[in-house]
């Protein structure tokens, strides 16, 4: 067998010849479909790939995409973003969070604006940096505003683990980690979007394992293929879904064999369970309250729980979106960004009215960048 190079792992999965060949196969097989296929790609990263590589343009008419809520920044309710902003304004606090978060609009402001006003906000691209910040600022309280789906949750857990091991007492956590399966259930239960196939998230699945999606087959008889991130991965996964549909044997399949297994990363799962537990309920922007859909720090670590320590200045009043923002319906897969009356006019990436426009993974942002 040939040797695999690092470049292969990127570019061979973007090979134009392969994409064209898969397009041909898909075209050939799709005619056998008895009904149109409406695929929801859950992960915002897949939305990004589909838009960036123009995959929709390569598919026959009877296959369409519905963009799912897999954008952890997009589904953050405004009141929780306000938490981050409030915390950042506290005199002795350094608010650290992952990059995209600082542009997301809360009810009145953003972390970026807070930073311009003098708040100590640090955008990170590595969770490990929190340790360095805490060490360099022993007199400050470093609050890590943790966001993300299951891909990113283990890193927060590992951070907590290391912080405890290194006895760093000035790191606090505001946990906003969310889970993929519950909103998928909620969307299917509402039945409105008429989804009949799923492209499963690449890297959430690396952690959870493909087993996390068995419920889609068991309870909803909907086929799911866990797909890699590159355009070849997405095209191959569509072909696999078509074959499942034709044979009418819905099951959980893995296209992303090079990185995903059925069981997932058990060590990561164990880390998460050691420090975090499922909340009874969490409000998702656009989707409303979904039970057992998010995580919090376990009670035994409450001395580091920012939500508890600063509870008196962190209100939980739900704050609704701008009247004209239809992010909610977009996240549920009911409308597309183009159907929004303020898309591209009052709501743009420079001036977002809703979260879907802020993050690279938001459907509105992707449409604005690639398909206006």
């Amino acid at each position, binding site marked *: *067998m*040939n040797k*695999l190079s*690092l*470049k*292969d*792992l*990127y570019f*061979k999965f973007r*090979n134009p*010849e*392969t994409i064209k*060949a898969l397009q*041909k*196969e898909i075209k*050939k097989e799709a005619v056998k479909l008895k009904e149109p296929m409406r695929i929801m790609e859950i*992960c915002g*990263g897949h939305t990004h790939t589909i838009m960036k590589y123009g995959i929709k343009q390569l598919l026959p008419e009877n296959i369409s995409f519905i963009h799912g809520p*897999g*954008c*952890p*920044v997009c589904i953050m309710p405004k009141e929780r973003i306000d938490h981050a902003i409030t915390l950042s304004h506290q005199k002795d606090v350094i608010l650290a969070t*992952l990059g995209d978060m600082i542009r997301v609009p809360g009810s009145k402001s953003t972390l970026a604006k807070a930073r311009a006003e003098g708040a100590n906000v640090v955008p990170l*691209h590595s*969770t*490990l*940096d929190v340790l360095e910040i805490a060490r360099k600022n022993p007199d400050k309280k470093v609050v890590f505003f943790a966001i*993300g*789906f299951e*891909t*990113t949750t*283990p*890193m927060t857990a*590992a951070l907590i*683990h*290391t912080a405890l091991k290194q006895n760093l007492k000035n790191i606090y956590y505001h946990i906003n980690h969310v889970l993929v399966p519950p909103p998928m259930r909620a969307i299917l239960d509402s039945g409105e979007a008429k989804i009949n196939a799923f492209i499963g*998230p*690449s*890297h*959430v699945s*690396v*952690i959870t394992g493909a087993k996390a999606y068995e419920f889609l087959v068991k309870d909803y008889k909907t086929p799911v293929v866990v797909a890699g*991130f590159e355009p*070849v991965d997405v095209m*191959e996964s569509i*072909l*696999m879904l078509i074959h499942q549909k034709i044979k009418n044997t819905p099951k959980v*399949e*893995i296209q992303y*064999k*090079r*990185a995903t*297994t*059925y069981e997932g*990363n*058990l*060590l*990561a799962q164990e*880390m998460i369970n050691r420090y975090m537990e499922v909340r009874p309920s969490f409000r998702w922007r656009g989707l409303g309250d979904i039970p057992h859909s998010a995580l919090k720090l376990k009670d035994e670590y409450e001395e580091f729980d920012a939500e508890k320590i600063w509870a008196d200045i962190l209100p939980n009043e739900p704050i609704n979106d701008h009247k004209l923002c239809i992010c909610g319906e977009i996240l549920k897969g009911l409308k597309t960004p183009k159907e929004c009356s303020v898309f591209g006019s009052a709501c743009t990436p420079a001036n977002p009215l809703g979260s879907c426009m802020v993050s690279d*993974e938001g459907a509105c942002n992707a449409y604005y960048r690639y398909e206006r």
Partner: protein
Amino acid sequence: MCLAIPSKVLNIDENNIAEVDTLGVKRKVSLDLIAEEVKPGNYVLIHVGYAMSKIDEKAALESLEVYEMLAKAAMEEESSISPEDLVNEEGPLLYKPKED
């Protein structure tokens, strides 16, 4: 979300921090979330400062082989590889179920 990048492990220090190469850019990531052994030369997926899994090279090469066959078949008008060749009893060759 979930932007995770394939990288090559260059070396690992005594604190389980690996120096990795990502298309020419060198970075340091923690291996604390990987249970199995990681050696220099292995490929890993990295995300926000951690390696989250090892990349299965054999699986990657298998996929690439199939893509090559498919691309060849698509390019040739009358090819010796017919679409039926891409199928066996278990289903289309494109996604042989992994032997557990």
